[in-house]
């Protein structure tokens, strides 16, 4: 090969000025495949094995074995973005089916085929609001208990705009409608609410919030996820303009924060949607074919006038989510959601029976998780529980939040026993 290119050595082919040449000594040792696996395994073994009752956006639902086996097929794992649709029909169809799943769940007409996670999807919703706003407004309203990752990411996304993020209060776990009403005016371009809320309560005023947003020409953005959406009010029915969230509650285990940004919106905003869209077309023989479409919105064509800078997104995670949803089917999804309600209620009841514990603290309906009040300081209780193999959230000086998703009945029983010992 060197002969063919007319070089005596490979080094000749590099055109690097001597002054900035590097000698290659990073100080990184090479290892065999086996040694590398052993190294990573021994490192990760330093993670304690805990039963996680954490929730708050990431859930350990059981993932059917089928999902791994199919998603790991190398054609899925090792292909590129579908710029040559003629040899990518399989992946495009999966993404189209993923979009369809979200359309069914949200009731909105359009879903893109992924953002990075809920936080960045929220950020993109704000830039969408900026692009489509009908007023000169600049206020973005979010709940005061918004997860820090979402709040901070949103701030970064609007940093290059004239939007400002402001908080409205959650009262007793749900939106304080009265307070919100007092805050909304024509200057508001986007109003964000979540269902369930970060404290696990099921929001009761979704339609009223939507009415408020509509009355003031603000974009109504709703945060949720596919399991919650299987049972709770359909966003389209409460007037939502955009739905964001983390779709990886299906398809991914708790992966240290890795996610899958769900983004669905109304048809009106078709040309302003961020991210990739798969559409249907025909090939030269008039057969149905799938393709990435409306690419003129995207950075590789529109450059600085693109609807987003996103390029590589979370396609393979969307595939996993689609397969997981398909293997649950509609009955499985609805059942899983229902159990999220009943099992949380059951657990709350068990905790509530203990002296010095009141659960749930909010007199609301809960989905999957809830906050418990503990008379003793919460932090030492959580530490004690961790020593006994359970991870829970401390969300206030005397408040602990727990989540039942993905935790087996047997483990919940052991958790109740451990909790009892700890608070006694």
């Amino acid at each position, binding site marked *: 090969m060197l002969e*063919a*290119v007319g070089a005596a050595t*490979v080094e000749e*082919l*590099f*055109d690097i000025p001597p002054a*900035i040449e590097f000698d290659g000594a*990073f100080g*990184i*040792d*090479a290892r065999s495949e086996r040694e*590398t696996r052993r190294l*990573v395994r021994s*490192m*990760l073994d330093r*993670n304690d094995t*805990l039963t996680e009752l*954490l929730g708050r956006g*990431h859930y*350990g639902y059981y993932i*059917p074995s*089928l999902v791994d086996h*199919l998603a*790991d*097929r190398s054609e899925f794992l090792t*292909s*590129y973005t579908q710029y040559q*649709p*003629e*040899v*990518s029909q399989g*992946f495009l*169809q999966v993404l*189209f*089916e993923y*979009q*369809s799943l979200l*359309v069914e769940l949200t009731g909105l*007409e359009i879903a893109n085929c992924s953002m990075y*996670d809920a936080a960045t999807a929220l950020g993109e919703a704000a830039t969408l609001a900026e692009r489509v706003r009908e007023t000169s407004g600049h206020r973005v309203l979010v709940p005061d208990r918004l997860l820090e990752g979402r709040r901070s990411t949103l701030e970064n996304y609007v*940093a290059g705009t004239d939007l400002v993020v402001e908080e409205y209060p959650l009262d007793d776990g749900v939106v304080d409608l009265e307070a919100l009403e007092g805050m909304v005016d024509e200057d508001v371009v986007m109003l964000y609410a979540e269902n369930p809320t970060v404290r696990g309560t099921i929001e009761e005023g979704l339609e009223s919030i939507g009415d408020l947003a509509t009355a003031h020409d603000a974009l109504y953005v709703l945060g949720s996820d596919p399991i919650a959406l299987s049972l709770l009010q359909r966003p389209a029915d409460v007037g939502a303009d955009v739905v964001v969230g983390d779709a990886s509650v299906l398809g991914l*285990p708790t992966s*240290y924060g*890795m996610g899958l940004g769900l983004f669905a919106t109304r048809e009106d905003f078709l040309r302003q949607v961020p991210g990739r869209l798969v559409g*249907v077309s025909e090939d*030269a023989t008039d*057969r149905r*074919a799938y*393709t990435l479409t409306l690419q003129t919105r995207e*950075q590789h064509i529109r*450059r*600085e006038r693109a609807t987003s800078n*996103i390029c*590589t997104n979370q396609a*393979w995670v969307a595939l996993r989510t689609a397969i997981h949803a398909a293997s649950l*089917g*509609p009955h499985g999804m*609805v059942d899983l959601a229902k159990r999220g309600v009943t099992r949380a209620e059951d657990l709350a009841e068990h905790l509530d029976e203990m002296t010095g514990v009141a659960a749930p603290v909010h007199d609301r*309906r809960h989905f999957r998780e809830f906050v418990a009040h503990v008379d003793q300081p919460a932090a030492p209780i959580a530490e004690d529980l961790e020593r006994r193999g359970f*991870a829970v959230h401390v969300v206030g000086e005397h408040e602990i939040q727990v989540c039942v998703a993905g935790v087996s009945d047997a483990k919940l029983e052991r958790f109740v026993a451990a909790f009892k010992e700890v608070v006694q």
Partner: protein
Amino acid sequence: QYEPLLAEKDQTRVEIGDDDDSPLPDDLTRDSLELPELSEPELARHYTRLSQMIYGIDSGPYPLGSCTMKYNPKFTEDVAALPSAAVHPDRSERSTQGSLELMYRLQDYLGRIGGMDAVTLQPPAGAAGEFVGIRVAAAYHEHNGEGHRDEVIIPDSAHGTNFATAALGGYDVVSLPSDEDGRVDLEALEAALSENTAALMLTNPNTLGLFERDITEIAEMVHDVGGLLYYDGANLNALLGRARPGDMGFDVMHYNVHKTFATPHGGGGPGAGPVGVVSELAPFLPSPRVRESEDGASEPSYELFEPDHTIGKVHGFQGNWLVLVKTFAYIARLGDAGLADASAKAVLNANYLASQIGYDVPYEPFHHEFVASAGEQDAADVAKRMLDYGVHPPTTKWPEIVPEALMTEPTEVESKATLDRLAAAFNAVADEADGALEAAPNRTTARRIDQTSAARNPRLSWHALEDE
């Protein structure tokens, strides 16, 4: 051959709220959910069939210039699938020392490889890395009372994400033409630079595969006006072990882990776009980062911390963690020698392939990729026709500096036999008439797809098809 949609196989509607077992009052639930309900065998066949309609890196060469498609060593999947890798992001630091150690060591590896002082692993993709870079630059200038800087300079041959990211960050984009050799035009740069310059974004080698020989001078010029120099890591694989952005004068850079370190692309992600910076910029990096903690235990322990002037977060937690695990494993497997070998083979392969094809390659000396010109042929048609020869075509029609560009990057993983096969495909197509090209592809799952119809009549879900 055609695989029906899941919804064409079954649609089952579940009514909610009218049965006894709904745990919620009707006004808190939806009315129904209608989705396909299929058995495991039916699903296995559906997705198996769909997978067979996809060309992946395990199907053959994938010489997408600048996109960089490498073979992904299988073992990295196994380490990412370890149950111990699956932890919740809100777990306590003391119970996740394994994840923290891996991140700490990966930050360290990446710092060494890029010649950077501090690294964040948070950005979930290259474009997100660019965004962090731009936000860090903005925060730095702001911190220094230079908040007026509102321009980012970008060569016209740069990736679209550079422009879109600068815009997302609120900057005006100043586009920089190339000189006749295909590199940064120093006079044009001089003219573009001003006290309003926040940063210059550069790829090196650039998208033509050419090394920006004047990089030291460029860095001086940018720094002289108080601007920062941003390195787009898309082509770092060409320099592994031979030159480092930090040594060239870059202040901030992102790494594309799928391009440089062979994590799988997954049909469009998940990726990871870690960002490295020189020490002056470290206080502005996203939060949290990982450092060794000083608790004096026998085993080193690690903790999260918030950089002093952090820009905050650009992702809910730490980006695409499982991709980071694969990245760490890949680097730890290769080590110094393997990394340098990768760039050697990448550059040799590109040069060999270019020497074997009939198309003209106007700019050289290129490194890991080259841009050929399809000349009188339409580059997009060339690509479609190459599909018929069982190989994936190169990136086409970009950069625009080369007419009908065929931007080609074979990467280090291809053998001579595969390069010869790829060259044969190029040359076969080069000899064909336009008619054959326009009729292509013929041997693919779908024939040429009508893009206009897809955009003119957007049907983006199976619900949209029902109306037809």
